[in-house]
């Protein structure tokens, strides 16, 4: 195990910039997730660490050793490919043994290592099968075992769960996480699934268009997003652009007035509020008036889309109890919205940014 350090890493494909100014440190035994929309440079970053892509600029250190220009076979990374990339002509055991053979391990020791790795992923009973005789989930676990068997300094995973169905995905996700923690693996995982990143990672790196926007724990990113993109990408968020007036008033572009913390700096800003921090009451009372435009029942959660002067506002809460007046709300009903001003975040205004998933 070792620490992984990327400094000022960049990759250009001709004129196209895939990755730019990436600074990142993955501590010994830590799991860091690279999160971002399609094409933001996650895979390129990971492949630079593995040595398959030559960086245009910057440095990669594994355990303090500069491997920026080292060939892939000399890097001691263990990579799990999105397509698994198992050797189709070798049995499960031979696949797992491959890395150990390359490390010139003796036969007995090798067999021991294969067995241990297969036991880790609970596949020791299928050792003699060929990859094509396995299900997708089993192949995925062989790929994991193959990478783990060599006890790599850095464990790399590129969307390892994207080919699995939802149930299996959450199962394997937990498996990877517990293995990673038990073995103390320094891990970099790529995903575009925020739930995956939130449940697995010690820290998350949100990327967009080749740049790192924010690095932090799930809670940090959720509670204190650095900008509107992060707020919209990690969890759901109501994002409204407008102007902060002195004295704690936020004037939206369409002329609405929202309460924000008193000490907020005046100027153009983006108002960010998590849907679960908004309280909703039937009828017109105090608060922002709106009209329900859609209700989505999600089991443990209900989502209300509320139309506020032509703008959609998302409110989420656990389904109200049977005797609650909220229970009989239906589309078109008048409601009013209130929130604790402390829950409001004011984010820097970015005219050209394509904001993440807006409600």
């Amino acid at each position, binding site marked *: 195990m070792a620490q992984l350090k990327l400094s000022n890493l960049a990759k250009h494909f001709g004129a196209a910039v895939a990755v730019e100014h990436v600074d990142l440190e993955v501590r010994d035994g830590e799991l860091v997730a690279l999160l971002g929309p399609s094409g933001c440079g996650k895979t390129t970053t990971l492949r630079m660490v*593995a040595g398959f892509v030559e960086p245009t600029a910057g440095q990669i250190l594994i355990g303090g050793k500069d491997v920026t220009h080292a060939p892939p*076979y000399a890097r001691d990374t263990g990579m799990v490919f999105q397509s698994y*990339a198992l050797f189709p*002509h070798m049995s499960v055991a031979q696949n797992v043994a491959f890395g150990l053979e390359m490390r010139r391990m003796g036969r007995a020791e090798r067999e021991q290592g294969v067995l241990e790795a297969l036991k880790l992923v609970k596949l020791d009973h299928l050792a003699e099968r060929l990859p094509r005789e396995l299900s997708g989930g089993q192949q995925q676990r062989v790929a994991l075992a193959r990478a783990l068997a060599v006890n790599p300094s850095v464990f790399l995973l590129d969307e390892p769960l994207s080919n699995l169905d939802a149930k299996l995905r959450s199962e394997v996700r937990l498996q990877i996480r517990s293995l990673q923690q038990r073995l103390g693996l320094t891990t970099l995982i790529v995903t575009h699934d925020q739930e995956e990143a939130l449940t697995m990672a010690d820290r998350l790196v949100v990327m967009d268009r080749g740049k790192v926007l924010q690095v932090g724990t799930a809670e940090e990113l959720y509670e204190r997003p650095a900008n509107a993109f992060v707020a919209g990408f990690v969890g759901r968020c109501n994002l409204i652009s407008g102007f902060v007036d002195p004295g704690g008033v936020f004037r939206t572009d369409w002329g609405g007035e929202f309460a924000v913390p008193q000490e907020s700096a005046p100027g153009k800003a983006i108002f960010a509020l998590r849907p679960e921090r908004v309280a909703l009451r039937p009828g017109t009372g105090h608060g922002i008036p709106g009209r329900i435009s859609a209700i989505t029942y999600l089991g443990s959660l209900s989502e209300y889309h509320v139309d506020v002067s032509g703008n959609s506002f998302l409110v989420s809460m656990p389904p109200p109890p049977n005797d609650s007046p909220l229970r009989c709300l239906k589309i078109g009903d008048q409601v009013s919205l209130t929130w604790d001003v402390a829950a409001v975040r004011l984010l820097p205004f970015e005219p050209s940014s394509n904001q993440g998933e807006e409600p």
Partner: protein
Amino acid sequence: MAVLIVPASLLVLGLLVAPMLLMLRISLNQFSPTQMMIEAMSADNYIRAVTDPYYQQVLGTTLGIALLCTLLTLILGFPAAYWLARIESRWKSLITILTLFPLLVGNVVRSAGWMALLGNDGLINATLLWLGIISAPLKLMYTPQAVVIGIIAVVLPYMILTLASVIESIPRSVEEAAANLGARPGTVFRRVVLPLALPGVAAGSILVFVLCMNTYATAILLGGPQFKMMAPAVYDQFIRANNWPFGATLAFILLAITMIFTIVGSIGIARRYKR
């Protein structure tokens, strides 16, 4: 659905199997200088062909040249095929077509070109003489080496294209996985690329071997009168000696040897592949 193969089957039956059966029948007849062919049922022609040292040598030369050319073509073709399969260039399809280009030139025309290059007053000798590197022309034409070079030039495109299509089907990520696990490029080739490309190696080698065994124009034009391979020998019997029974016998022996080597080779590769 089975009806779909009827036209092709009829064609094969009519144009391949029927003449072959006819040839087999002819090979059992006897030759007579006056009557040309006497109906018979004898193995005399076969006995003569396998016992006559001259024809033993012709067969040996043919087999040796074919095996050598197949091996050299495989060794030369694999890196080129790998490169062709892996380039990510917008010119890829153009390069693939260029690979086929040599086939646009017929064997006779091509060999004539080689003669102009390798002959005693051909381009190479003329240049070397002019530069003063040699004082008398080197014997380049009418040598087995000239034949080998000439054959390889013909069959190389077949090998490259057959191999490239198989290598293309090997995911690059599989090679990357091997490198990631610590395999150097040579090991990646030996342990991953080559085993996965074996079906292509088999198909390409069989194709090339069959073409080499049946070399005709190249053998005559670049090998000269002293150099004999099977296909020209068959031609000689049919056209020059008018000995149809013996010509048919030689043709059948050529066919049989080609088939035996092809089948044994495929079984060998299939067995390795299954392992």
